[in-house]
């Protein structure tokens, strides 16, 4: 990595975002292929809305209010419909998912969340292998396990945490042996 990821230790969203971003980087280095469909659909929906607004602005600016009244009405409706779909996509479909990817036929979906005023990183990993029922693993660990006092993300403990949390990696990765703070599996249930 060119520069070490750094986060402001006082800002919980930054700790979370930096950790989220590092998951994708780490899994990429381990041969996982990320699937960007969720993000791409969000971008397409969002930018469609922005283009509608941009067009409305242009026609309103060049032709004036009276001539564009009817078109503006339809544009306003279309814009807010696009936004409703976008909101549904973000809350219903993306819902905290920070990584979707696959390797050797196994597909994993990782969602993360934090709770207010609590420096604990919660991960939910849904793993699908062909011919098997998907398994859901929920793990959590304090951010201090992989952020140093200056706010730099230390790769090793973080990667250990991640690889131990993903069922198909936990068995095979050597990092598993250098655990400092063990990720505590909160619950492992068959879904």
């Amino acid at each position, binding site marked *: 990595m060119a520069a070490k990821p750094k986060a402001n230790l006082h800002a919980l969203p930054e700790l979370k975002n930096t950790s989220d971003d590092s998951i994708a980087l780490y899994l990429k280095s381990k041969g996982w292929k990320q699937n960007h469909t969720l993000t791409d659909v969000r971008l397409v929906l969002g*930018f469609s809305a*922005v283009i509608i607004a941009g067009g*409305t602005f242009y026609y309103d600016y060049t032709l004036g209010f009276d001539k564009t009244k009817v078109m503006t009405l339809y*544009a306003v409706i279309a814009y807010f419909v696009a*936004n409703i779909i976008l909101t549904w996509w973000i809350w219903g479909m993306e819902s905290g998912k920070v990584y979707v990817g696959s390797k050797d036929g196994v597909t994993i979906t990782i969602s993360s969340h934090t709770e207010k005023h609590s420096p604990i990183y919660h991960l939910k990993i849904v793993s699908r292998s062909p011919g098997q029922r998907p398994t859901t693993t929920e793990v959590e660990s304090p951010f201090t396990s992989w952020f140093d006092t200056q706010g730099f993300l230390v790769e090793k403990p973080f990667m250990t945490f991640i690889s131990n949390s993903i069922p198909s990696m936990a068995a095979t990765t050597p990092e598993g042996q250098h655990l400092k703070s063990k990720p505590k599996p909160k619950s492992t249930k068959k879904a």
Partner: protein
Amino acid sequence: MDALGLSKLRHLKPRQLLSQVLNFALILSTAFMLWKGLSVATDSPSPIVVVLSGSMEPAFQRGDLLFLWNRNLELDSPPTPGTRVGEIVVYNVIGKDIPIVHRVVRKHQGPKTPLHLLTKGDNNHADDTELYARGRWYLDREKEVIGSVVGYVPFVGYVTIMLSEHPWMKTALLGIMGLLVIVQRE
């Protein structure tokens, strides 16, 4: 530069960068489309205006915010009361660019003539004939009036007076807002 967090932008991958740009664009476009929605609903090109002069004091002071409504004109639907004397209208004289908020003191209308209005500021001694286009004694309701005042919020619009009187503040504010939205992630 790093204090502003710009160095972080360089580490973003294309999709993340696009997401940040989208967040910013959505804030701007949503504000604009809400304005346009209100505009279409009230049928007024400018449904909210800021009072710029003291000619309607003590009712309105500089910086007060006015909400306009431009439907139910007598022209549209005769049975419902449209523009009547005593209403406060906002008009843009053809060829002049400053919206004026004054009270209607006369109206004259016929089946074949447009609704003519004469306006006057409560705080002014003379009526507005002087402000109208040269040679015109009355306003044309349909062409010149952009709405009639229905709602009032004091003082809130003073920010826009400050911004338009000191243009550098506008640039600075836009810049700071843009930067915050791009740099910050929720």
